[in-house]
């Protein structure tokens, strides 16, 4: 069988690259510096004491398009290498065994230059042979090579003339800005030759700084007063960095983007997934040596090593917080105040952190927002509801009775509460819902039961069509005549009733079948308060029709107090009741 190679249209490739692979044309600067750094690193392999350096210059004169010049004193390319690597765009000049030491891929790197230029001229002299080579390439894939007579120091020089329309990338300011952007922390000096050489990279990286230095660097770079700076280190990724704690709370689902360098070259400012998901309260600056960027170079290949690096970096943050909770409680409290959601997630996953954090974490309770430490002062039995509706039903009554009930319906709260007895062994945690809470209301005495009997019987009859039963208890606050309580099932049934009134016939009948086939129907309760003065008067009344009206109105009122949407028939009750009372009032 014959084997053929199909031809790839280079121009099409470049379009593809510029439109899709690279998010901005300015990456050509990154690729150029990358190639220079690679070349220097390669030279240092054979000449350990070699002092690498990189220089840039901009040539422009009126009437011509500006040209960027970049030189390095790296290893250079031999004639054969030039053929080999530049002829086959995309092939890397680094052999596989040495992959770990080099970052870029020469061919692809140079290719990105065609996004902004129609001709690349490259002069190079290899440390391995005494020949100066000139290569000229065009975006259509054609190129020429000649050996020059002139002497040249070992290294590579590249001339890049701007394409029409891309002149804005070829100004002194823009070039300096782009080099600083990508190469701020590169280990070899980079100079821009203006009237005098300007050093473009800094001599200290954030991961070499003290906390104070890192914080002031962060402030200068991002204009944000971070709460704290946590040193990061991952052996698996040979990674170092700083995690800045954000001074404001952030949504868990917000994109967590980090400023990441690979071998000290900026990979991207928007790398995701390098820290664990829970670490959404920090933003980081990181240098990674042992992770593989994807083709777009803006994230990492999602492999086992990445998971390990994530884990190790996460561990750094955890250790730091643990340390802080012991040595600097005020700072720790400040962090919790802002980032409790994140820390709740952490505490819920990790027993060690749980023990340290739990007392400081805030919860919503019938007394407002309290830290667990404060909640524990109320009672040795911590009561909580697991959904909002239950909490809403009982929190007022609970407060009136000085009972602290925690609203466990927020993320992780229930899980956190359930773990409490593991740490505080003399504490109990009890889930309550409105009915179990109601059972704690004081029962009526036998004598009082007799007094209330007729009224309750009547109320039950009146409330029957509304899937609600009536009860009578003593409870605080006195001024609350009746409390409507329900459970999840009963509430769902209520919702279906309400929906059926609106839905089309087909769905309405589907909903009917959905609920009819459940085993047991669930009822809500209306619990009257025997201590309430109005109720006291009502049970003494013998006017049946008036009492029916009162039950109906108290029922509707309790629904409204509990924020329950009224069904059609309940609205009618309300109307009927109001009119009747008005008429009674006028009649007197």
């Amino acid at each position, binding site marked *: 069988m014959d084997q053929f190679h199909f031809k790839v249209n280079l121009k099409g490739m470049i379009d593809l690259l510029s439109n899709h692979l690279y998010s901005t044309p300015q990456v050509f600067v990154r690729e150029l510096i990358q190639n220079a750094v690679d070349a220097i690193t390669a030279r240092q392999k054979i000449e350990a004491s070699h002092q690498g350096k990189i220089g840039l210059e901009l040539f422009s004169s009126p009437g011509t398009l500006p040209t960027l010049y970049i030189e390095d004193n790296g290893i250079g390319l031999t004639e054969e290498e030039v053929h080999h690597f530049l002829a086959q765009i995309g092939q890397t000049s680094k052999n596989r065994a040495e992959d770990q030491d080099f970052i870029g891929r020469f061919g692809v790197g140079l290719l990105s230059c065609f996004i902004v230029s129609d001709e690349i001229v490259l002069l190079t002299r290899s440390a391995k042979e005494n020949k100066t080579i000139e290569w000229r390439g065009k975006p259509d894939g054609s190129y020429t090579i000649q050996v020059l007579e002139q002497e040249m120091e070992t290294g590579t020089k590249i001339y890049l003339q701007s394409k029409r329309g891309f002149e804005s990338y070829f100004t002194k300011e823009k070039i300096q800005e782009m080099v600083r952007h990508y190469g701020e922390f590169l280990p070899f000096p980079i100079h821009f030759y203006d009237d005098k050489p300007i050093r473009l990279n800094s001599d200290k990286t954030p991961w070499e700084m003290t906390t104070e230095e890192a914080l002031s660097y962060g402030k200068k770079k991002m204009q944000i007063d971070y709460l704290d700076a946590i040193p990061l280190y991952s052996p698996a990724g040979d990674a170092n960095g700083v995690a800045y704690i954000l001074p404001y709370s952030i*949504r868990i689902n917000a994109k967590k983007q980090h400023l990441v360098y690979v071998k000290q070259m900026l990979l991207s400012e928007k790398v995701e997934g390098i820290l664990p998901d829970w670490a959404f309260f920090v933003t980081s600056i990181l240098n990674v040596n042992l992770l593989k960027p994807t083709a777009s170079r803006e994230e990492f290949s999602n492999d086992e090593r990445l998971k390990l690096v994530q884990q190790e970096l996460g561990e750094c943050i955890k250790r730091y917080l643990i340390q802080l909770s012991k040595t600097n409680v005020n700072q720790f409290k400040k962090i919790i105040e802002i980032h409790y959601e994140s820390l709740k997630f952490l505490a819920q996953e990790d027993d060690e952190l749980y023990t340290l954090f739990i007392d400081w974490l805030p919860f919503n309770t019938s007394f407002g927002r309290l830290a667990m430490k404060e909640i524990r002062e109320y009672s040795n039995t911590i009561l909580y509801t697991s959904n909002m509706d239950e909490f809403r039903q009982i929190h007022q009554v609970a407060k009136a009775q000085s009972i602290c009930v925690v609203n466990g319906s927020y993320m992780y709260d229930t899980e956190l509460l359930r773990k409490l007895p593991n740490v505080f062994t003399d504490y109990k945690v009890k889930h309550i819902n409105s009915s179990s809470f109601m059972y704690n209301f004081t029962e009526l005495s036998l004598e009082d039961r007799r007094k209330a009997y007729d009224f309750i019987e009547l109320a039950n009859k009146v409330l029957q069509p509304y899937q609600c039963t009536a009860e009578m208890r003593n409870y605080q606050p006195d001024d609350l005549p009746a409390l409507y309580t329900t459970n999840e099932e009963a509430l769902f049934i209520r919702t*279906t009733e309400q929906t059926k009134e609106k839905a089309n016939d087909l769905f309405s*009948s589907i909903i009917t*079948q*959905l609920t009819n086939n459940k085993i047991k129907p669930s009822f809500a309760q209306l619990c009257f308060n025997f201590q309430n003065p109005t109720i006291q008067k009502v049970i003494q009344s013998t006017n049946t029709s008036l009492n029916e009206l009162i039950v109906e109105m108290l029922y509707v009122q309790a629904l409204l107090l509990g924020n329950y949407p009224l069904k059609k028939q309940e609205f009618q009750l309300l109307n009927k009741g109001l009119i009747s009372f008005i008429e009674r009032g006028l009649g007197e």
Partner: protein
Amino acid sequence: MIEKFEDLLEQSYDAPHGKVKIGILEEAIRIADVHLGPEEQFDARMLLVDTAIFSGHGEKAIVAFAWCLAYYDKHPEMANDHQMMWNYKWVADRLLLFPDIELAKVEATLEDLRKRFIQSGHGPHYYYYLKHVLAMNLEKTEEVKHYYEKWIAEPSDSLSDCHACTLANKTQTLLYLGKLEEALDVAQPILAGKVFCHSVPHRTYADLLLPLLKADRKAEADTYYQKCYELIYNQTGFLDTSIKLFTYLAITDTPKAVSFLEKYFKDAYETDESIVKFDFYIVATTIWDILEEQDSKTIQLPDSVKIEDIKQEMGRLATLFDEQNQTNVYTNKIKRVQTEIQGLQKIFQ
């Protein structure tokens, strides 16, 4: 109240699928119903539809959607057609988890969906898919083949499932038809990790377990079991997938099956998705009967649930499902699954 409402929606965006998120949205709906206008009522319900679907609460999705659909029919400007049809698609899909709803009503819903899809400029691709799933549920093999052919011949469109799901669905059908090799070919990109989504490869791993066992390829099945369990462990909305793992354990590893039963029983007991409950109960009761009495006594069930009640409820559901669908596949299914597990268990343990 609008602030409270917006705050709840904000919280719901952050919350992972599950009870907490549902609770937050239901609270938002109550506030919207009592204090705010139809726009908020509609928006919060649409969010609930989405959340309930992915949290294993199809019944809540159906109810919330019914409200939205009725409102949308009166005020078509309220939502864009695509958004509405997209949710309808999911609701119809979940409706198939409720064989306690009369077949005629389910079929009427699918016809309504088809009509609306076409009216809004979409094709019947997903409709055919649903028809063939319904046929699979009712074990009408000829109908399955018929609609399967129609489904794969129909061009997909913006209401179709994602690529990963489509492959997973095809795999599932081929497995139902007993074509293991073809199924593995179709599933190849899934198994190679090239395509994936919210529920894939999870459910494909699970679907493959029993067919692989039957083909005496336990080593592969073991690997997929492990991978699947890691993916769905502590995740919401995968109870149906977990039943397949449960079945696999019932056959291959009784002690593990027992602790699996203890871990997932509460979810099955509480779920309203009746076919999921039913399927779980079949495996649970089978395991129970396999165990010696002294061992079954050690199984911890929540509250005061007794196995007799479970068996009774399972029987009630089977009769109800059969009645509503004019069939006997559900009653037969109990026996069939039991026999299958007991038979295979003798080979693999």
